[in-house]
């Protein structure tokens, strides 16, 4: 297990973090928009959001990535490996986070809306000052859970050639021939990245509240 290989894998770990972070931020915007669509009174918009969410949650990420990378070119849309992975992960995030956002907002008792309305606050004021602060706190544990899941899902991008941690591991195996050790190290790398994040959940909750 050469020093070079270890370094190679660690650098690829940065790619894992990078693509996950970008997908999360982009996905969050998409998720907010989708959550909004799913909660409006216009049924057609609800349907669009629902279809999108069901598609993302009901089909394998691997198949989604294959489609974006291998099949879209046939239709004339050629995305790079990184872009394909990013699009797939962003779409995934958009759907899952939309559900988290929606569930958090809908879990707030109607009485809160009533009380705020009775005091004369406008819809916007209620959402920003009363509902969102509570919804965000409720949303933190599942969001942290999703972030972990996202980082693990980034490993799927290795199948379309993105050089993140998992792919780097496989490439390193070809060079060093030591599969067991290398994969073990890759596993440790993911563990080191993900484990602290889930433990972070508790302290973030306290701060925001």
């Amino acid at each position, binding site marked *: 297990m050469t020093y070079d290989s270890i370094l190679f894998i660690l650098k690829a770990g940065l790619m894992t973090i990078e693509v996950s972070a970008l997908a999360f931020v982009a996905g969050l915007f998409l998720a907010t928009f989708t959550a909004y669509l799913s909660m409006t009174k216009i049924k057609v918009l609800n349907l669009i959001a629902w279809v999108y969410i069901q598609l993302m949650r009901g089909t394998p990420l691997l198949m989604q990535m294959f489609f974006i990378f291998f099949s879209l070119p046939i239709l004339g849309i050629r995305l790079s490996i990184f872009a394909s992975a990013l699009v797939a992960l962003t779409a995934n995030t958009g759907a899952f986070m939309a559900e988290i956002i929606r569930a958090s907002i809908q879990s707030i*008792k109607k*009485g*809160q809306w*009533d*009380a*705020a*309305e*009775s*005091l*004369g*606050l*406008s*819809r916007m*004021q209620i959402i920003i*000052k*009363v509902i969102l*602060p*509570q919804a965000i*706190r409720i949303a933190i544990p599942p969001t942290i859970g999703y972030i972990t899941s996202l980082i693990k899902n980034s490993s799927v991008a290795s199948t379309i050639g993105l050089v993140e941690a998992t792919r780097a591991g496989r490439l390193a195996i070809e060079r060093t021939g030591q599969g067991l050790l290398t994969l073990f190290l890759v596993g440790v790398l993911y563990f080191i990245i993900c484990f602290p994040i889930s433990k972070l959940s508790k302290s973030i909750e306290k701060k925001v*509240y």
Partner: protein
Amino acid sequence: MLEVKNVDKYYNTFHALKDISFNVPKGSVTVIIGPSGAGKSTILRCINRLEVFNSGFIKIGNKKIIPGKMRYNDLKEIRTRVGYVAQSYNLFPHLIVIENIILAPKLVLHQKVKAARDNAMQFLEKVGLADKADSKPENLSGGEQQRVAIARTLAMNPEIVLFDEVTSALDPELISEVLNVMTSLAQEGMTMIVVTHEMGFARSVATDVIFMEQGSIVEKGSVADVLVNPKEARTIQFLSKVL
């Protein structure tokens, strides 16, 4: 000062309010009594427009509430004049007590923070909770939370306050502290409409009583008329069960 006229409300096909009409003079304390499902909460919630009714109108001073859509500005006017306290107090859990009280004055009445705070402290003292200004709602008892809810409503300087079964969810020993606040409020001349099962309160504080059953007003009048000398059979029946 408040006039309810021919109000009808349907929940889909369910006729929840049937031709409700009554007047609330300034300074009076109107108590609405009746069995569950009578529509008492519903009519209250129509007065501050948390619920929309299908026909008739409600007038508060010179402001009118009508069926159908109303613009936010009109709604704002109504809600600043009509205070509403619900059974489940609904304090905002992410804000401490004093912040709960100054939120609406700041955002809706555009009060400056200092003025809003002073105002809020005044009302907190009035309900006997000045020392809890910096507490979190979750650390207060039910009775204390309900009193804060009342202070929060009073801080908006309403002309009339609606109380929707505000003691029904409280432990017995906590009920009296809330009723005391309501009694002193009445004595100061606040116009109040109170939906309650607390007959003692009704008898000692109310000026008018309305008895509702299954969406209609069965009988209404002064305390003497309704509670002491009820005329309708159904009123007599109901009162015999609760008094």
